[in-house]
């Protein structure tokens, strides 16, 4: 990275020097042309004086004209002929046009190079800054489950525990490990999405199947919690998407809803779907912690934490909704979030282009 930056900066310096050289060359060529014009006019002025001297010496005008064809003689006075003057001016203008075209072209090419390199340098600086921010945020996100894990282990080491207390601690440690594993997965997913290193398929996928798979995986999670998880997704609704990406989207959006509900001590999460104007809408409603209406768009930014429980709960990483938005964009779909306010629950709507039902 450092060597590449040195190379870019060197290239930028060389291009800037080249541009300055071309600028100097243009100035020099212009000066040369002006001097040449002045020298030519001085030469013609000398010829005119010589013509007048010849006339004064009695040489006939025709003879003078033969000797000095670029000089016209009239009533004892000699001057540069209109034709020679025109040729001189035309030559001067031609040289200037040539310099302007050549110099202009080179300067334009060099300016384009400078712009390209400067843009690349700026983009690289921005990427480095984002990477630093990302690393800082990632390390911060990891430290909390790590602290919880360490605390649980040290509690077990320090205190005599009843079997039930030990079981609670073990479950907590397993959940912390699961959270870190999910974080690693989501960080990798988000990095791949960010760098465009994803090769998504676009094929008809039945929404009900994806929702059922994710709900089955989450059912165990909500057991023992005061959370009701309902689904009303009719079979036969096909979206154009990548099957694996669709599972990730549905999983993340439901994980988020569960975290929001868990943050207020329980509640309901309801999933429904419908076809509308050539699109398929999946709606996830939760009675959880909600958010201020103005924060709807911020929810989909990386590591956004608006309220306790959302993005910072036992299962939240702050990346889930970001991944949902990126995957929806890649699937030519969209996702929106609405809430009437903190404590008012939330509604997430995912919209995909509808796909034809296979086999019809």
């Amino acid at each position, binding site marked *: 990275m450092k060597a590449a930056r040195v190379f870019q900066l060197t290239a930028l310096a060389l291009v800037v020097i080249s541009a300055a050289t071309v600028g100097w060359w243009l100035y020099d060529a212009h000066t040369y042309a002006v001097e040449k014009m002045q020298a030519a006019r001085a030469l013609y002025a000398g010829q005119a004086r010589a013509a007048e001297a010849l006339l004064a010496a009695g040489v006939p005008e025709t003879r003078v004209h033969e000797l000095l064809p670029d000089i016209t003689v009239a009533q004892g006075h000699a001057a540069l002929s209109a034709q020679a003057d025109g040729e001189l001016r035309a030559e001067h203008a031609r040289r200037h046009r040539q310099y302007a075209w050549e110099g202009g072209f080179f300067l334009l090419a060099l300016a384009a190079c400078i712009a390209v390199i400067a843009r690349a340098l700026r983009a690289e600086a921005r990427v480095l800054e984002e990477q630093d921010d990302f690393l800082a945020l990632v390390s911060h996100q990891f430290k909390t*489950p790590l602290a919880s894990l360490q605390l649980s282990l040290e509690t077990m080491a320090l205190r005599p525990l009843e079997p039930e207390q030990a079981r609670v601690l073990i479950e907590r440690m397993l959940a912390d490990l699961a959270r870190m594993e999910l974080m690693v997965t989501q960080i990798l997913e988000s990095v791949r999405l960010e760098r465009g290193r994803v090769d998504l398929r676009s094929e008809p996928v039945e929404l009900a199947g994806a929702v059922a798979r994710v709900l089955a995986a989450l059912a165990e999670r909500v057991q023992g919690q005061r959370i009701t998880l309902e689904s009303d997704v009719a079979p036969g609704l096909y979206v154009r998407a990548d099957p694996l990406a669709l599972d990730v989207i549905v999983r993340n959006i439901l994980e988020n809803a569960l975290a929001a509900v868990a943050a207020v001590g329980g509640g309901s999460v309801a999933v429904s779907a419908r076809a509308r104007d050539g699109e398929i809408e999946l709606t996830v409603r939760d009675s959880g912690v909600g958010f201020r209406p103005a924060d709807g768009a911020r929810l989909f930014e990386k590591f956004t934490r608006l309220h306790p*429980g959302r993005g910072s709960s*036992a299962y939240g990483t702050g990346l889930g909704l970001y991944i949902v938005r990126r995957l929806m964009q890649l699937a030519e779909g969209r996702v929106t979030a609405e809430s009437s306010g903190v404590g008012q629950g939330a509604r997430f709507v995912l919209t995909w282009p509808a796909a034809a039902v296979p086999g019809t």
Partner: protein
Amino acid sequence: MSTSAESARRVLVVEDDPHLAAGVLENLRAEGYEVAHLADGQAALEWLQSERCALIVLDVMLPGLDGFALCHTLRDQGNNTPVLFLTARGDPADRVRGLEAGGDDYLAKPFHLKEFLLRVRAILKRWDWYRSASASAATAQLTFGGNEVDFRAFRARAWNGEAQELTEKEAMILKVLAEHAGEIVSREDLLERVWGYDVYPSTRTVDNFILRLRKRFERDPANPRHFLTVWGVGYRFLVEGEP
């Protein structure tokens, strides 16, 4: 509203991570503390308007009102409840920021349970000492050079009649010096008694607090008569003032 006896052993934990909060609460309970838990800064601020506790264990990265802002607000409101910051950001700049916000101690995540409990105990011990040292009517007041200090209310009236609000550290330093009036108290002793073992990096901090006390209570802070510097050692406090 809790009674003062209840609040003397009650620790408020403000932490938005449910697992970490549960672990901290369980261990504090096991050590015999009463505990209360809140998951966001605004709720904690509202809770503290009507409730009291002996210590706040405060996460920095809280949604809404963050830990630093909460601590600042509490200090501005005259709430001197000690604060132990618990945070994932452990670099020195954040540590200093936390202490400047009015925090008493700072622990970076992940932390060792024993160290956490030790720090909690150390902070409460300092406050227990301060409270017991200011318990009676005689020890709650200090009069010197026309200044009157009320240690329990963290208030004072200076020699010129000006009302003064003391910070917890200023009050504690003054208490330590008053307990040893006439004796030399080293900077290290002041650090140990008021801040604890390794919270501040330098004894210069003590010097800054002494300067603040001189500005509040000395008629001529440049030529102090009560807060005397003993070069190379520490300070001597004289109730009567240097002749």
